[in-house]
Structures are given as C-alpha cells and as structure tokens.
C-alpha cells in the first residue's frame, strides 16, 4: 500500500488513498481537517514552526504529527512550544541538516521529541556535526528518542539486516509518493524537482542498475546496499568520503554493541 504525501488543497483528489497531509500552518490544518476522511489520514506534516500553536489543542488527534524545521539556526528555540502537543500525539521533528542543525537536534532530544534528519548532500563540516550528533545520540544517557536515519541504520548493522536510507527517510517511491502543490508526483519534498513516472515500483532497483553501470564510487562502495546512491542526488558528482566516515562510525558502534552483548551474555551464562 502506498502512502501519499499531499498538500491540504489536493486532499479531495486522493480520497481513497492512505495520505499524510501537509499544512503550511496549524490554522490551515484546522480549516481543512473537517473535510478529510479520517480513515485515510495516517499523518500530518506541519511545514512551519509557529510561536503560537495553541490552535492545535482544539483538535482531537490520534495520528502522528511531523514538524518541519527548515531553518534550524533561527527556529530551534521555538521547539519548546510543542511540548504540550508532543505529550498528546506521536510527535516527530524533521530537521534540515544546515548550519546549527545540531542545536535544534539537541533541543528536540532534550524535550523528548523523535528526530528525523533531512540530510541531503552535506559538506564536510556538516558531516562532522552529524558525527557529533550520532555520538550524542549513542552515548548520552538522557537521549531516549530515536534520531533517524542513525537509529535504523544502527539497528540494521547490529542485527545484520538489510535496510536502505530511502525507506528510512520515507523517500522510496515504491511506498511513499510525494504530491506537489500542482498535483505532480515527485520523489520527495527534498527532491521535488524530480518528477516521477507512473510506474515507480522498481525505482530503487533501476537506480542500483544505473549506478553499477556508471561504475562510479557507488559500484564498489561498502555501504551501497544501505544507501543505493541516496547521497548522489541531486548532484551526482557529490563525493561520499566523509559520509563513509560517518557510516564507518555507525557500523563500528553496532559491531561493538554486538560484541559487548555477547560478552555480557557469556558472562551471565557463566554465573547461572
């Protein structure tokens, strides 16, 4: 079953589908919400951070809400305004990886919000900050909520499971379709310039094939099965060496965690 991410104004055209509706403001959401068939509504995306979001307290909500932080350096302090909402619903903050994003992540985590990083194609400085945030997420005992994509990748490395960042970031078009404001189907909010054709179920397999044919750095990358060229869009010439450093750190952490658990289990077994 595909999930459609649709603007409020186009909800009518996708009545029979499972939808995540995105709203510029809480006020707009309140205005349209009565028209949406609640059976098909599986999530809400708020596109702006409001100082006053008290209007949301008027809505009976039982579905997850994701708040987009586009400009973390100016918006991180407003995250405090969502504490009440986060206690009522499954609440996640999607933070764009731009300068000072780490401040927003730390505030969000301290308030107990789940975090999703809109990572894009970060430069070396931002990857260093991502590494710092990963270590904060991994080692700080006060952090109790997941930070995606770190969390799912760490779990996959730990259990030796397969996963990929497209899926983790809700950008795999075989399961998530982004509907632009003009009704066109696009790859995702981040990559809304990439318009999708009708049949997109094989998008990742075709992408895999294309990257292998190109024989660029993806073809022999040790993390390709987790990434499938995620960091090569939109600029195919993006060099992944720093990203690989981040993935190596996540993998080392997962391997270490597994070894520690094996040791602990062995130790516990010896005492029984």
């Amino acid at each position, binding site marked *: 079953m595909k999930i459609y991410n649709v603007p409020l104004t186009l909800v009518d055209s996708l009545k029979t589908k499972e939808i995540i509706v995105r709203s510029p403001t809480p006020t707009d959401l309140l205005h349209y919400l009565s028209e949406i068939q609640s059976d098909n509504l599986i999530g809400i995306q708020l596109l702006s951070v409001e100082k006053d979001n008290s209007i949301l307290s008027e809505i009976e909500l039982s579905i997850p809400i994701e708040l987009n932080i586009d400009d973390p350096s100016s918006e991180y302090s407003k995250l405090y305004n969502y504490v009440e909402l986060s206690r009522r619903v499954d609440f996640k903050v999607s933070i764009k990886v731009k300068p000072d994003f780490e401040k927003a992540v730390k505030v969000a985590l301290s308030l107990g919000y789940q975090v999703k990083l809109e990572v894009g194609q970060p430069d070396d400085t931002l990857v260093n900050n991502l590494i710092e945030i990963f270590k904060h997420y991994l080692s700080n005992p006060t952090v109790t909520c997941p930070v995606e994509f770190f969390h799912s990748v760490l779990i996959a490395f730990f259990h030796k499971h397969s996963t990929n960042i497209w899926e983790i970031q809700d950008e795999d078009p075989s399961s998530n379709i982004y509907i632009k404001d003009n009704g066109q189907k696009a790859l995702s909010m981040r990559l809304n310039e990439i318009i999708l054709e009708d049949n997109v179920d094989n998008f990742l397999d075709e992408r895999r*094939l294309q990257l*292998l044919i190109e024989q660029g750095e993806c*073809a022999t990358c040790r993390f*390709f*099965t987790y990434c499938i060229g995620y960091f090569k869009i939109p600029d195919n010439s993006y060099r992944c060496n720093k990203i690989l450093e981040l993935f190596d750190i996540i993998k080392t952490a997962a391997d270490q965690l597994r070894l520690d658990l094996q040791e602990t289990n062995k130790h516990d077994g010896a005492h029984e």
Partner: protein
Amino acid sequence: MQIRSIYLSIKPTLSCNAKCVYCDTLQPSTILPIDLMETLFEKLASFTKSNKIKYVTINWHGGEPMLMGLKFYANVIDLQKKYIKNVELVHKMQSNVTLYKGNLRKVLKKLLNSRIIGTSLDPFHPTRSILNGENYYIKCLEGIYLLLKDGFQVSVIYVVHKKSLKVVEKLYYFFKNINIHYVRFLPLLDMTDPQYMITAEEWGVFLKELYDIWENDNFSYIISPLFEWKKAILENVPVRSCESGPISKSGLHLIMSHDGLLYACDRFQIKRTHCIGNIMQMDFDEIINHKETYYVYKKKQLLPKECQICNFSRICMSGCAALHDDTGKTMWCNGIKNTLIHLHSKLTKFMD
C-alpha cells in the same frame, strides 16, 4: 549402488555470442538437435522409473545456452511434459545472460522452475566482450536486473586472474552491490599469458585477503569456496562438492555435449578426454556401469600419501580430480592449504 539422484549438465551448443580471453568455446555453429533431446528424455524416463529415482537436475550450459532460442526451449518443455512423470525435474542454467530479454524471457521463466541461474562477469578488466560489439558488462548487468525482477536467484562465477589480486576489496563489494545470491571465485585455468595466469600461491593470497574482507563485513553474503570451507571448519563436516571435498556415488553426475557425448566432468568435456559414450547409443544402465562414469569418485578415494596426512584433506580432498598434478594432488594445493591454515586460525579463535 542405488542411484538416488541425477545431475545432468547439458551443453546444447558450444557456440557463444561472447568472447572471453580465457575461454575457447568459440566453436563453429554447433546445435543439439531436438530429436536427441527426445531420446535423452525417453531414456531418462525409463531409467528413473525402473530405479525409482525421484530427483533429476538439468543444468543448461554451453557455449551460450540462450543462443538456442525460445523455440528450442519451448520444445524441451513439451518433451518434458510428454516423457517425465513422477520425477522432480529441476532446470537451472549457466549463461552470460546478455540475451535474456523479449519472448525468450517468458519461455525461460517457464522452463527454469528452480529460478536459479548462474552467470559470469569481470567488472574491472576487459576480459569479456560481445562479438557484435555491445558492451558485455552493461548487457550482463541488464540481464541480471531482469532476472532479479523475474524472481530468479542469480549467482556469479568470477574467474580470478593476476589482475584480480589488486582489486580484491572492490570485487567483494561490487558483487555484494549487485544483490546476487552468491558469487563463486575460481582460479584461472589453462592460460599461460603472464598478465593473467596466477600461481597456486597467488590463489591463496587472493582467498586470504578476500576472507578478511568478508569477515570484516560480518560474512554478509555467500562467497564460494570460502563459505563451504568456513562451514566445514566450524561444524567439522566435509565439503560436499566435486570441486573441493568428497562426492557421493549415489548421485549420478553427467555432462552431455551438443552431439550427445557424455562425460563425468565438465573439464573432461572441454578437453575431450574420459568420454563415457553417446546417449544415442547407450542406455543409462550402461552409463552407470561404464568405468569413466565414476572416474572422479574413484580418484577421490585414492588420495596420495601427502593428502592422507594433511589436516585439511577432509575439506579439500585434493580438489577437482581433473586438475591433479603428477603427484595426484590438486595443482592449487599450496594456495588452498595456506588459505585453510588462515581460516582455521581465525575461526578457532572465534570459536574460543
């Protein structure tokens, strides 16, 4: 000896649409006639019925088996329906997969009920080309893509040569990234060109480096022969393949070329030695009583003294019987032994 299963590798043509630097299968057009297939199925049906054999595997090989085209394989499906009853007949194929497209795709999906197909690919060196000038690498990847889409398990044979020694890690991850079922690394044979040929020691160097990369990647996919060797060491069991390890006499293993000639081993067919006879003139009862049919099996029973006292003989069993040197050992002995010492030391540490 009761035969329980039959493995038949059929080479319906020795022609190929590709040219590999280490392969000489480019033969003038050679085609297995469909009436020969009918004779084979007829004799197979009679033999399996009288001996209560339930399992038969046909592996289509070549040359390039897809050159036979959809009509040939559609006929094979019809003949199977006509003759083969109460037997589980599984079809597999070894192909360069560059011709897997169009209507042939439909017929092969129907024929290859195992959904298992093997191919071969060298991603980093120009050892393979297609005769019509198309790019082998791209066409093979496109074929693999379609096969995976059609639900096949694809395995790849990679022929290790001198230049492979410099790209072991790249090879490991490339094959992982294709998303195939497993990759089988085999050392290059019968080639004296110094830019490609490798020694037994170099084969060992390649395998040891490959093992360390595989271990560091948490053994995340199946690579042969390391997978079998690791299992044999950890579980203290012998490897069951004619390549490395003992083989069973209860499984009849035959290779049939396009002209109906039968051999016990693919390498005997290539060298045209130890021929058993022709399916047109022999019944399966004669085949199983022919001295060449169990040549490989017998050779495995007669290991030289050095192998008998070797710690790893239950894993290696002197390798492929067609590749024994004058002393009766496998020509890759030094490389295999060095690799197994390396694996044993790492795995036993792991077990502790």
